[in-house]
């Protein structure tokens, strides 16, 4: 690797994940399945219905096309025992990949349950969120590693139930944030219906992590007519974040919860400067419709918002494009994410190669220092 700070961080990540100079993946994943969390789900009519379905991904999650199975099948089959979508990619596999790539601490987000807002039955959504949280806690404790953390999954359909999940798990030593999936999140993130979640998260000092996902029907995804996975995935991630951020911002959520941090995951960072400047322009032009804010949207972003870098996309590594984006947002606002074990993951070098303009301290912050601060690792 070209940069001595990255060399040092990779070495330390492999051997000493408690070191302040380690690469943190601020958006790693497990790939849970309904089968995996079954034993953790409360008995009752909701569970019976969920597990009686022969096609639960369609009937429960409303999934149309998620990550296609051929994506996983083509990936280094000799290194994986199981890699088809129907099987869980549990924490042990993610940790193996982490060590292979020289990444240190992981902050875990679910995979299938990025679709949780699209679950049409609120009873199911509540039970699934509860079961997932119990399962991931057990998974982390079973691995016995002190540097693997999770975001508490909340069911947006029933925000008060989401607040109860936060209250339940906030004191767990491995819970570091709240996972608010964005796939078809409706009402959008700025609606007051979600206030119990924001209130509970702020109370416990947990950042709310917004994570986009695909394959469902809900607005604003408009899944019909996006006939391929590629077409949907290309635009739905940044679109979800943009839609939800505007709602969050213009309805004054960061103003009402000034001690609450927000993390936007898995849309990369290219959309952020564009939307940030656009929101500022609209605020100055239409502030009579936005009395909930007391300062420019960009000022809230620089105070309370963070962004993970994956996917970097096919951005040129020989230019300053990514570095300029990061400077526009704020070098203290951006965190490396690998998105392990998903097929579109980024290696740490993929980001560090694009940070040549920054000094060592800034690089260290982007690669892991800021995530340590945001998630209190």
């Amino acid at each position: 690797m070209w940069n001595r700070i990255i060399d040092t961080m990779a070495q330390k990540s492999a051997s000493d994940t408690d070191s302040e100079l380690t690469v943190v993946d601020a958006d790693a994943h497990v790939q849970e399945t309904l089968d995996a969390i079954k034993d953790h789900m409360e008995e009752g009519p909701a569970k019976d219905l969920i597990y009686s379905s022969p096609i639960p991904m369609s009937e429960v999650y409303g999934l149309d096309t998620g990550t296609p199975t051929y994506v996983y099948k083509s990936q280094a089959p000799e290194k994986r025992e199981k890699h088809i979508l129907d099987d869980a990619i549990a924490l042990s596999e993610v940790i193996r990949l982490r060590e292979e790539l020289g990444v240190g601490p992981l902050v875990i987000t679910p995979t299938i349950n990025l679709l949780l807002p699209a679950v049409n039955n609120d009873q199911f959504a509540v039970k699934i969120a509860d079961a997932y949280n119990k399962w991931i806690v057990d998974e982390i404790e079973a691995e016995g590693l002190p540097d693997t953390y999770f975001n508490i999954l909340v069911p947006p359909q029933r925000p008060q139930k989401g607040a109860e999940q936060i209250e339940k798990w906030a004191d767990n030593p491995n819970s570091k944030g709240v996972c608010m999936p964005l796939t078809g999140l409706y009402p959008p993130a700025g609606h007051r219906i979600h206030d119990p979640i924001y209130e509970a998260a702020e109370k416990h000092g947990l950042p709310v992590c917004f994570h986009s996902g695909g394959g469902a029907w809900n607005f604003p995804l408009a899944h019909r007519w996006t006939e391929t996975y590629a077409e949907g995935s290309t635009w739905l991630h940044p679109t979800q974040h943009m839609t939800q951020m505007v709602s969050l911002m213009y309805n004054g959520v960061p103003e009402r919860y000034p001690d609450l941090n927000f993390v936007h995951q898995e849309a990369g960072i290219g959309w952020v400067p564009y939307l940030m400047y656009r929101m500022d322009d609209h605020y100055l032009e239409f502030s009579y419709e936005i009395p909930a804010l007391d300062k420019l949207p960009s000022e809230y972003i620089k105070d309370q918002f963070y962004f993970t870098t994956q996917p970097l996309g096919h951005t040129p590594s020989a230019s300053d494009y990514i570095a300029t984006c990061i400077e526009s947002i704020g070098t203290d606002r951006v965190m490396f994410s690998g998105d392990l074990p998903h097929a579109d993951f980024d290696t740490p070098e993929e980001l560090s190669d694009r940070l040549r303009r920054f000094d060592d301290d800034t690089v260290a912050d982007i690669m892991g220092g800021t995530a340590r601060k945001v998630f209190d690792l």
Partner: protein
Amino acid sequence: MSKARQKHSDVTEFESADRVITEIKGMEIAVFKKDGSFHAMANYCTHQGGPLCEGGITKPSQLGDDGWEWEYDEERSCVVCPWHGWRYDIESGANVDHENIRAPTYDVEVEDGTVYVLR
């Protein structure tokens, strides 16, 4: 640079208008009459140079005591730039949405029915 009194307008012109715009030393300057007082501001929006003082006059919006209902800030008046809607406090020249943005303002004196701007 010392400021000199520049004749701007006659008080009688404000009997039928809430503002008068006059060019003084190459700069269009508007004088507004509000609650019996006169306030002068450059007819130039610092956004993209629009004719700021030709816009409508309104009051800034804010949230009520319940933290939700929209209401007007009755203590302030602002002129709305007709180009992009940026809004400036008539008295201070400050953009009502961002204090670092300001339109130039000028002192006003009235004597013997004549409105003077100091520039």
